[in-house]
């Protein structure tokens, strides 16, 4: 089990949280100008690094707020948590 440091509640057990996939993915400004391939890239394609990965989590069974976390996909070590819309230690990539 992971202890995840919710930016509002502090360290809480993993089972209180839900996962929201890769963080900092921005919706394209003009979707109708995109090719199908570009739109599909926005919708479906995610980076899958071995190592530190900025991702979204929500404290479903707690304060109910979304936030970002940097998790190492090899060790599960969570090196940072920070609010939505904020820049993390990895930037917005």
């Amino acid at each position: 089990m992971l202890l995840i440091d919710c930016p509002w509640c502090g360290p809480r057990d993993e089972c209180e949280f839900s996962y929201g996939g890769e963080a900092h993915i921005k919706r394209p400004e003009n979707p109708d100008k995109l090719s199908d391939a570009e739109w599909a890239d926005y919708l479906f394609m995610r980076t899958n690094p071995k190592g530190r990965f900025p991702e979204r989590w929500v404290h479903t069974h707690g304060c109910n707020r979304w936030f970002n976390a940097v998790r190492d996909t090899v060790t599960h070590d969570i090196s940072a948590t920070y609010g939505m819309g904020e820049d993390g230690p990895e930037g917005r990539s």
Partner: protein
Amino acid sequence: MDNGYMRQGPLDYIPISAELEADQGGNDATVVLEDRGFRGQIVLQGKASDAEFFDAVSDITGLRPSKETNVVTGGPGFPRLLWLGPEEWLLVTEDEESGRIMLGLTNSFKGRHVQVVDNSDAYAIVGVRGASARDILAKGCTLDLHERVFRSGSSTRTLLGQVQVILHQVTDDPDYEIHVHRSFAEFLWEWLVDAGQEYGLKTVRP
């Protein structure tokens, strides 16, 4: 309520054995499980930066929403304002007060970006009190319930026996109140009865 229809609480039909009813006060038990009955339960959401929101809630209820994590304003009496998140609170009132307070809040926030929802009948309230109460909750809750961390006047949403609950420690005894969705109330009640068996848990009605 006295307006001519049968109002049924979520835990009303749970059988409480004659043996336990004989000891209503449960005074010799180290832990007592109790249906706390009907209360007003109003969810409030407002922006942390909206000073008028805080002032209005304070005018109507006499309580200022806490900006501090897990901190309840008011209590052990009523009303109480439980912290649920950075911009979300649960106002707990006496049953007969909830209509008046709900009306006051709704009128005050008309046309404003504030959420006021009467959830009174959505949750059952289960009380767990006594010397072993903390140990029983700890069997199914990952929160650190040590009094240095979660003490009287603390509240939060969390999981208990895999059920989402709002947990409030009301007094130092300790006395906990658990707000649970009514459809999960029977399961959670039975879970607590089972968890409390080794401590001689008793069940009582108010």
